[in-house]
């Protein structure tokens, strides 16, 4: 058994799981996370993407034990981490019809947020490249890319951005989730095919 102590969407969790339990299964089955989906369990599709200390990772390729003492953010907690960015992305994904079945959407939004943070004026080809590790079978990607661009524009006018839409967490931490870890930690890129 592995004893895993990690903060998820701002809530501190302490849970005992089998050693072999993936972070994805821990989040979904033990911690009640509803915005982490399993599409391949091999690290190809990106549907299981979460932020580990603000870096996108494939949670199906991590063991839960590896996340001990780290901060995990799923789409459900992104609004707490980044109210303006989340509101902009959610608004843009809706207005640009970047969502059909919704299965890839959490991963797409988490990767998009990361991309826009690094490069707020990211253009089409930079966004296209950034999301190429997230498969979508419904949209053909174009409206997703346009939504991310639209979100970037919304965020650059951040004074006018819509209010965040997320529940306030009870209890849990009031401190920051900490800065991003170094790029050479587990990242979405290292888990790419």
């Amino acid at each position, binding site marked *: 058994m592995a004893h895993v102590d990690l903060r998820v969407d701002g809530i501190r969790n302490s849970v005992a799981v*089998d050693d*072999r339990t993936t972070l994805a299964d821990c989040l*979904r089955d033990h911690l009640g996370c*509803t*915005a982490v*989906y*399993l*599409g*391949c*369990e*091999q690290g*190809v*599709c990106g*549907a299981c993407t979460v932020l580990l200390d603000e870096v996108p990772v494939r949670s199906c390729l991590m063991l839960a034990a590896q996340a001990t003492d780290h901060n995990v953010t*799923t*789409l*459900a907690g992104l609004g707490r981490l980044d109210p303006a960015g989340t509101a902009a*992305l*959610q608004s843009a*994904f*809706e*207005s*640009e*019809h*970047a*969502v*059909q*079945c*919704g*299965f*890839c*959407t*959490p991963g797409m*939004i988490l990767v998009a947020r990361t991309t826009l943070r690094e490069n707020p004026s990211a253009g*089409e080809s930079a966004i*296209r*490249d950034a*999301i*190429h*590790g*997230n*498969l*979508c*079978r*419904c*949209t*053909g*990607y*174009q*409206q*997703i*890319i346009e939504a991310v661009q639209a979100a970037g524009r919304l965020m650059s006018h951040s004074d006018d951005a819509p209010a965040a*839409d*997320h529940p306030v967490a009870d209890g849990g931490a009031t401190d920051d989730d900490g800065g991003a870890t170094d790029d050479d930690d587990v990242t979405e890129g290292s888990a790419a*095919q």
Partner: protein
Amino acid sequence: MTSTDSTPALRVVGTRRPTRESHRLVRGGGKYVQDIHPAGMLHTAMVRSPHPHARIVRIDTSEAERMPGVHAVLTGSAAAELAKPAFTLAAFHDPPLPIPLPALAVDKARYAGEAVAAVAAATRSQAEDAAARVVVTYDVLPIVATAADALAPGAPVLHEGLGSNLIMSRHYDFGPVGELFTAAAHVVRRRLRWPRQTGAPLDTFGCICDWESSGGLTVWSNLQSYALLWTLGDSLGIPPQSVRGLPCDIGGSFGGKFWLPRPILVCALLSRITGRPVRFVEDRVESLTAGESHGEDRSYDAELAVTADGHFLALRFAVVEDYGSAFVLGAINNTEPLAQATGPYDIKALGVDFTAVVTNKPPQAAYRGFGGAAHNFMMERMVDAAADELGIDRVDIRRRNLIPPEAFPYRTPTGNLYDSGQYPKALADVLEFAGYDRWRRRQDEARAQGRAIGIGVVTCQERSVQGASALWVMYDQNPARGSTSAESVTIRIDGQGHVRIALHTPSVGTPLETVAATVAAEELGVDPDEIAITFADSQLAGPGLGTTASRMTVMLAGAVHGAAENLIEQMRTIAADLLEADPSDLAWDAGRSAFTVLGVPNPTVPLARIAHRAYAEALALPDGSRTGLECTFSYNHPIYTMPEPDGSSWGVFCPIVGHSAHVTVVEVDVETGQIHFLDYAIVHDCGTVLNPDAVRGQLQGGIAQGIGSALSEVLEYTDGYLRQRDFRSYLVPTSIDIPAVRIKHLETPSPYTRYGVKGVGEGGRMAAPAAVISAIEDALRPWNVRIDAVPVTPEDVLHWTTSE
């Protein structure tokens, strides 16, 4: 059947608005079958045959049963004592074809990966550990690997009752086929091959069954239709009306989740045995290898009879279809394409030679188009071939043969109608929209520099909304006398005048809620964002075929319109009383959501006022009205006729036909074999566009899958073993593989549907492969390449450009 000429200007239909579904999904609110956990739920792991063809001699479950967390182990033979095989369309054949589909394989495994036993345990890992301890003794049999193997003399027989591996064969001559071929100046001949592919949605199939001690069954699943659920009771020996299927969010389907009875029967039986809810969710490898969701798998020997100046006289082809180890949806993947068999061209005769065989592969399901992608590919390859052989430009030859606009409604050789279209305009518009002439100049300049740019132009049909006979017309008779293809919806106006809609078919990620809200707002004048929409379960649901075959826009629009019309008539009686006028003197003003006296704009009686009377003022209700305002409306396919008994005509079985013209510009890197898209422009006609962004999403997404079909997706078998078993080898396109498709809409309304809408869901995939292949072939003209199959991989390109 209102033509749009008499429809007042639309206020909601056609406006650009976000889809309702997005709001919940961008907040991570999607709840898919893998997210459903009833209390006490057990997990299922399947025991699967490692052999493509083998007799099951013995199954020893004793060790597995003793393992921690295991509640039950079910073998095929035990399941067969508890449940009959699932209903399939093989049963509609007369006599029913002896190709059973039991919950688990009983006597033989007929494909590598077929489930032969199942374990229910407290956790998924416990179930998998126990499944690995089930000991199955097989007697390995020789493999029927290909369609050719299936038909070879002395071939091993998969289904003893069938006697051979031939499921059925049919020959049709619609029109004077033979004469036209004999008289033709030239006959173009090609052999074309279309391999297995699959929708591969990110959300694999799953189900949870809860067997009620009182004898009913609750099923959660991501099936895209309730139709299967209505047959489960018979299989399980319980009253069919006691089966209750609950929908959930579906993360895509593309046809694969239409009819998947086997895991549901397994879970139902395990629930019956254990007294717990039991869940099964495929993992990705299971989904690809054993999900029974593969698409069409065929070869065409095709001939096109043409005149010397390139007019098409007749088309005939022999198609051999490898249906895999069972015949679940019957011949539907060959029937549906014949709704548009001659494409958008004025071809007077069609000959079809159809052969269906079983092999040791998973049984086919459907993949976005029901065979239409393969058929359009064949048609457009034949047209390009005719152009090349006659020395006519590929665009010109299409111009010479497109059905002219005055010919509609156009009767095709099979008897089906094309409802409406402007094919020459679509072609002219796309050439201009794409900048075709400029691309040709750039192609010439590029060639001079040694670069291979190619332009593909295709004009394709996108049939939608099939009628009932698509399920059985190739069987020649209709034992169920089935002629209904309907869709149902329930609308209630509550006591405060709020509209509540219950949809009777699940969405697969398609904007059904948006369609329903749009139409209800159009007809009733309410704010579409204030309409409450839910999904009825299968026990309550009315007639419907499901989200399939691009039918829901047409059928749901018709159903919602019908229910709204009915509600307006219910309200009329009350309104007339309030206005002290005769009901026939009243007009419903949708824009103001109110009744007035005809020609007298005020006073109005608004919907909310009428609703209050209907719900709260029983003593004030006039004669002819009742408490409440609700309607469940079942909308029938708007134009459908039965086939002729003598087989000379299939009747009108799929007449709502969209159309698109694609111009695809690629550059082929002849050193790496890679294909780069330089441009992709289409003119698309699905009649009236109900929601522009949603239509664009279906087209961009469908074309993306079509590009995958053309360039990277294939399910190849070697001696009965699938080589592409996960996403590392079944290559679905990523964002860097797909261009931004430029779309221009041409709206030629259907004269038969509400608002003139046509289906669009499958369209992109049905045309894109032909366009992409045509472009690659054009790019490789200097190497004299003829492309007769998909996918075209970099290895293929290098083979063509570097071989001696």
